[in-house]
């Protein structure tokens, strides 16, 4: 018996399919009936807030580190702000008296970025829509 060459692929294709109980679907539907209808997964508010705080931290960190190495503030931001301040000289002479140390400029910039991000996050969390 069975001395002929075995066609394993042919046999595999003929494997019988195991079947479920006849009342399988009825049981399943009765257990599903108590479940809420499937809803798309939404990110929870704490996750969004944590992600934003992380993002803000990363941005601030990246800014401070790159500023330490490349001096972005001194190179670009300070002159830009000085120009803006200078443009006000004619209108508001008293502004020209203000001496702006770099740390204040950095603080203002970081503060402005944080305010914008905070506004975006609040808008997203409250309305669920992007700006």
């Amino acid at each position, binding site marked *: 018996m069975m001395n002929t060459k075995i066609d*394993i692929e042919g*046999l*595999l294709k003929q*494997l019988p399919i*195991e079947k479920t109980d006849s009342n*399988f*679907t009825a049981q*399943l*539907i009765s257990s599903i*009936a108590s479940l809420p209808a499937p809803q798309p997964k939404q990110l929870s508010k704490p996750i969004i807030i944590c992600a934003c705080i992380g993002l803000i931290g990363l941005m601030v960190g990246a800014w401070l580190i790159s500023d330490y190495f490349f001096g972005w503030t001194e190179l670009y931001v300070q002159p830009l702000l000085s120009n803006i301040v200078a443009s006000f000289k004619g209108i508001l002479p008293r502004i020209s008296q203000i001496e702006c140390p770099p740390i204040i400029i950095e603080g203002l910039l970081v503060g402005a970025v944080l305010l914008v991000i905070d506004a975006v996050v609040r808008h997203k969390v409250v309305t669920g829509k992007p700006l």
Partner: protein
Amino acid sequence: MKAQGEKELIQQVLQGDTSAFALLVDAHKDRVFNLVFRVIRQRAWAEELCQDVFIKVYQQLAQFKHKARFSTWLFRIAYNTAISALRKHQLSVHSINESHSYVEEDNQGEKEALISLLEKAIAQLSTEEAALITLCYTEEKTIEEIAQITGLSKANVKVKLHRVRVKLKMIIERSTNKN
């Protein structure tokens, strides 16, 4: 079931129609059960897991983006559920083999006897190997789909399928030589 019909049924389920889900279940339950049973090898447990699979499918249906075929997505959930259940219970595959529908070889045709031997041989395979064989030959899934379901690479699926075929052939030949 055609992909378009399936898509419409899925939309109906998402709108809260459980009878549409019953149709989806009816279309796929035996194939899912067959896969889970080949991995688990215990009828009662496989039935229970199959129920879990369809409950997961129902709960996650909104996440199905129609990037793959519905059956591929369903089989992936079924395969992962079966493998996780096995790992959780830390049962050895060989300790839970259940003699289910194996029929005696006496008074049978040669082909039936060979299929019976093949089923016994499949029961000796690892869970992954049994799943690969079921997906490839019973479900007639493509290599790409099997790779998606099992999380293996396409090359790995091909190699493993070849090895499993050789292994099955060896087991069957050993059994027939004994007889």
